[in-house]
């Protein structure tokens, strides 16, 4: 099991970019990468699957990281959090991600599924809908996410 091989083996993804290279500049600044964090690469899932699944609620990115001897995946969605309607949008994307991931070798990896707010946040961590998303595996990170070693 290796991140780069399994990305290649996933229909539509082809290959991973180096480091955070798949992320747009505006999204990249929302991630903090520790000095000793070992990144395995990144893929813009949304862009890669646009042609094959144009109407799907596609997830944004996957970033690989090696922690100890294991490879982990960060599934990252950068999305507005300006209204509770955004929670429903991200919930739809999470549904899509769960179903799609199941069809790929990437489902075998330890993972964190993260929503990073792309602006000011209209809800706090006590919001019942965020609790419901946590119950389905999603972490709400606010405007930043750290990839620590």
């Amino acid at each position, binding site marked *: 099991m290796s991140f780069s091989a399994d990305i290649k083996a996933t229909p539509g993804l082809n290959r991973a970019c180096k480091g955070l290279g798949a992320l747009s500049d505006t999204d990249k600044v929302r991630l903090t990468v520790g000095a000793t964090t070992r990144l395995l690469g990144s893929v813009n899932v949304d862009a890669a699957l646009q042609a094959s699944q144009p109407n799907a609620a596609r997830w944004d990115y996957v970033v690989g990281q090696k922690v100890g001897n294991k490879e982990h995946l960060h599934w990252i969605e950068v999305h507005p959090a300006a209204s509770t309607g955004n929670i429903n949008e991200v919930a739809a994307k999470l549904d899509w991600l*769960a*179903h799609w991931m199941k069809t790929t070798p990437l489902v075998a990896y330890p*993972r964190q599924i993260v929503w990073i707010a792309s602006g000011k946040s209209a809800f706090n961590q006590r919001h019942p809908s*965020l609790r419901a*998303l946590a119950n389905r595996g999603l972490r709400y990170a606010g405007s930043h996410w750290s990839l620590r070693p």
Partner: protein
Amino acid sequence: MKRLTLRNVGQIKEADLHFGDLTVLVGPQASGKSISLQWLKLMLDTGLIQDQLHAYGLDYAGKTEDFLDVYLGEGMHSVWQADSEVHVDGKRIEIEKKIARQQRNKSESAFLIPAQRVMTLDKGWPKPFQSYSPGDPYAVRAFSDGLRMLMEREFAGTGPLFPQSNRLKADYRKLLQESVFADFKLTVDKVQSQKRLVLGSGGNHLPYMVWSAGQREFVPLLLGLYWLMPPGKVARRGDIEWVVIEELEMGLHPRAISVVLLLVLELMSRGYRVCLSTHSPQVLELVWALAALRKHKGSADDLLNLFEAPHSAGLRDMAKAALEKKSRVYYFAPTGTAKEITDLDPGSSEAQEASWGGLLEFSARANDTVAKAVANSPEFSSGDLFAEDK
């Protein structure tokens, strides 16, 4: 006063507080919130405090150290050191001189409801100023004595203290009945000749010590609110402009906290400037909602919906006035600094603001812990969690 700056006072290295109509202080225990609020009261009411201490035979001989032991409580003189500074509206106050000389202002400008308010009724009746030990903080003694005067002057009759038709709007009384008192009425009875407050229902009178923790906490707060909201058409009591309430949430269920917060808005609508210290995210949720409603032109009805309060004409007027008020929030860090976090943006890159001064930290960690466990579970991988969406 618009601004109070404290430097090297007790655990506070620097706290530069710009007050709003509502100012909320958050932060862990012993981070300087209470000290700051007591210095606010001292700077506003120096003459009154000096006068009261003299009247009750507390002689500090014009010395700052002795004064602070009496005012803040035994041993608290140590908060004031050679490098300590207090500034009011940017102007440095010479504390030693101010304390050494009797100040003129003798009417009360700031009414402080202390965190230790439950102690004021420990025998079921407010204790007079002199019945406390000399080392007890002035704030507790003064509050207790104020309640005693209220009881003697304004509740000498036989009717219940709560509910009472000329105290608080009927809507508030109904909400308090539901969230705090249930079927009970707060009344005065006598054991031999000693008056005491009791909660009565159907001929059964419960003394103070058997009340619920929330009721014991709430009744002194209620009496304080009675003092601040006199009966009749008078909006405010005397010359009081400031209301300081420490930890209004103590002992209360979130529904009761919600009603107390509604009463805080009532105080603001009457023109009081309110300062709170709190450990409750619910208080910050109100500040957050107020700012959003103001910014996005929300209505009085929207604000009342937050409280599930009736949309009566009186409450709508109150909510409308409250929406025009401005709030400020400060986080007191254990390192001794106070940082303004008024925006309360949960998505902020500033950890103190995003976590609302630490009040959301545990919620965030709980969410993260659950999400991580779920995301790596067989149920997630198999798609069972999402089966209903298929």
